[in-house]
């Protein structure tokens, strides 16, 4: 009996415990099913644009940071370490497994790979912020575009495979550790308008050193510019740095250009009076510079006319001669008096006329009175 009674008690206690457990777990089970229904969608990785609000109220970041001042392009010397921060987000409720995020410049190939980072997984609606360090050593000088690729290994089966690439808005301009010279040449007519025979023309040459090393004053001229026929040097030349002068019929300049700096050279010429209408005169200066930093001018850079689309083209001016007999914009006719001027003059002269007559009357009556008194 005792054993039987105890068995019955044990059974009833187990039953009661089971019910309690069920009651306790029921809300958890029910709420669990309601909040997290099974997701049938595949994940979708993408790069949200900077400033977009993501889960947990965090803001998306896509940024390129260099050691110097910010800007677009970000200008750095070759060998500088650049930090690239990118945010990868999973758009859908489907969890993404492990995948790679790769960073390239200009082209999506191994030669242009900046780095790869492995992401273990990205749950639904979650994001991850990755930071890449880009060592620009060996990167060719010039402007470069940075491109990030999510799931570069194709490990994740995504809902949308076309949004896995992001091109950074900020570009990076890498400058070499030697001088890098570029030159522009423009002309100015101080009188304004088109150049005419006999006009004085000012040529302005700007030589820039876009390299990360100063360009020294090396043996030989750094810049020469032949004065073309039908132009005469007017004896006025200036340079913001170095020394400018005339050697024969060419303007020459010697001097240093600091890294990232520029020199502006100007000289004046007078156009020949015999130039004919619509005649064009072109000329181009030449910069001799040191491209490898051994203080020898081993490279040449012709000046470019920035007003044209062509690259390294000569600077040309076209003479416009107006026929002397043709009335020009500057022609005036200058009547001696306008209509109102004529009316005013007539009225004033008439008043003066009457006034003088009256004065004359006074004089004559005075004379007569004198005669009478006498």
């Amino acid at each position: 009996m005792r054993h039987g009674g105890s068995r019955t008690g044990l059974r009833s206690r187990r039953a009661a415990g089971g019910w309690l457990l069920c009651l306790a777990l029921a809300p958890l089970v029910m709420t669990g099913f309601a909040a997290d229904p099974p997701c049938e969608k595949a994940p979708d990785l993408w790069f949200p644009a900077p400033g977009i609000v993501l889960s947990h109220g965090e803001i998306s970041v896509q940024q390129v940071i260099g050691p110097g001042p910010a800007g677009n392009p970000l200008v750095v010397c070759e060998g500088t370490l650049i930090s690239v921060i990118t945010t990868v987000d999973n758009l859908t409720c489907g969890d993404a497994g492990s995948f790679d995020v790769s960073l390239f410049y200009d082209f999506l190939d191994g030669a242009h790979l900046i780095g790869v980072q492995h992401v273990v997984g990205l749950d639904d609606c979650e994001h991850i912020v990755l930071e890449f360090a880009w060592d620009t050593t060996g990167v060719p000088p010039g402007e470069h575009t940075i491109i990030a690729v999510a799931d570069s290994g194709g490990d994740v089966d995504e809902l949308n495979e076309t949004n896995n690439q992001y091109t950074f808005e900020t570009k990076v301009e890498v400058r070499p550790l030697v001088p890098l010279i570029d030159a522009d040449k423009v002309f100015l007519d101080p009188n304004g308008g088109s150049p005419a025979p006999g006009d004085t023309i000012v040529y302005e040459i700007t030589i820039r050193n876009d390299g990360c090393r100063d360009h020294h004053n090396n043996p030989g001229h750094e810049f020469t510019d032949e004065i073309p026929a039908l132009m005469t040097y007017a004896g006025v030349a200036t340079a913001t740095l170095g020394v400018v002068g005339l050697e024969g019929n060419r303007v020459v300049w010697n001097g240093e250009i600091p890294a990232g700096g520029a020199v502006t050279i100007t000289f004046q010429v007078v156009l020949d009076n015999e130039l004919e209408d619509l005649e064009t005169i072109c000329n181009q200066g030449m910069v001799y510079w040191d491209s490898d930093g051994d203080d020898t001018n081993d490279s040449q850079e012709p000046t470019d006319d920035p007003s044209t689309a062509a690259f390294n083209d000569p600077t040309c001016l076209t003479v416009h001669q107006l026929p002397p007999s043709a009335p020009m914009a500057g022609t005036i006719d200058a009547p001696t008096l306008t209509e109102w001027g004529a009316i005013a003059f007539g009225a004033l002269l008439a008043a003066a006329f009457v006034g003088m007559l009256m004065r004359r009357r006074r004089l004559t009556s005075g004379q007569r009175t004198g005669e009478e008194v006498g």
Partner: protein
Amino acid sequence: MNKTTTIWDRVHRSWRTILEQRRGGRRLASILIFVLSLSGFAVFILWIMGNEAATASLQTAIARIVSSSLNLLGQKTEAIGTTVSSARFSIAVVTACTGLFLTAVYLAAVLAYPARWLAKLLGAGIGLTGIFTLNIVRLVSLFYVGLYFPRYVDQVHLLIWQSLTIVFSLFLWLFWAGKVAHAAYKH
């Protein structure tokens, strides 16, 4: 005696009245002559303006004189027809630029003013020379203003030179009437 004096006095007064009336008539006549001369010169100017050959030759002559003056001052100008041209600026000498109206009004005033013929001739000479010279100076200066300060051409032309021309012509006439015509009359 008293009676005689009274008669003489009356005769004298009568003569005086007649003379004064004559003098008043002279003043009236002078004003009439001034108006008639003005009308005459106005007709003359209208005739000249209608006569292209006459105006063109006057304009051409002035253009040549202005161009020569400018060349003497170092400018490279050329008188082509009635235009004074350079590479950068030109002045077209139109009929109104010749000072014809100004001269005509001045001459009308000289002609109408009571004075001896010699004094009138002298007055006409002074006026013609003075106004013509001033007009050449005016055109030369306007060329320079147009060349170097083109923005101010209108102001210089309309305000400064017009006023100067009027004042100068008035001064010339007043000078003649006051110094030459009156002096001759007094003597």
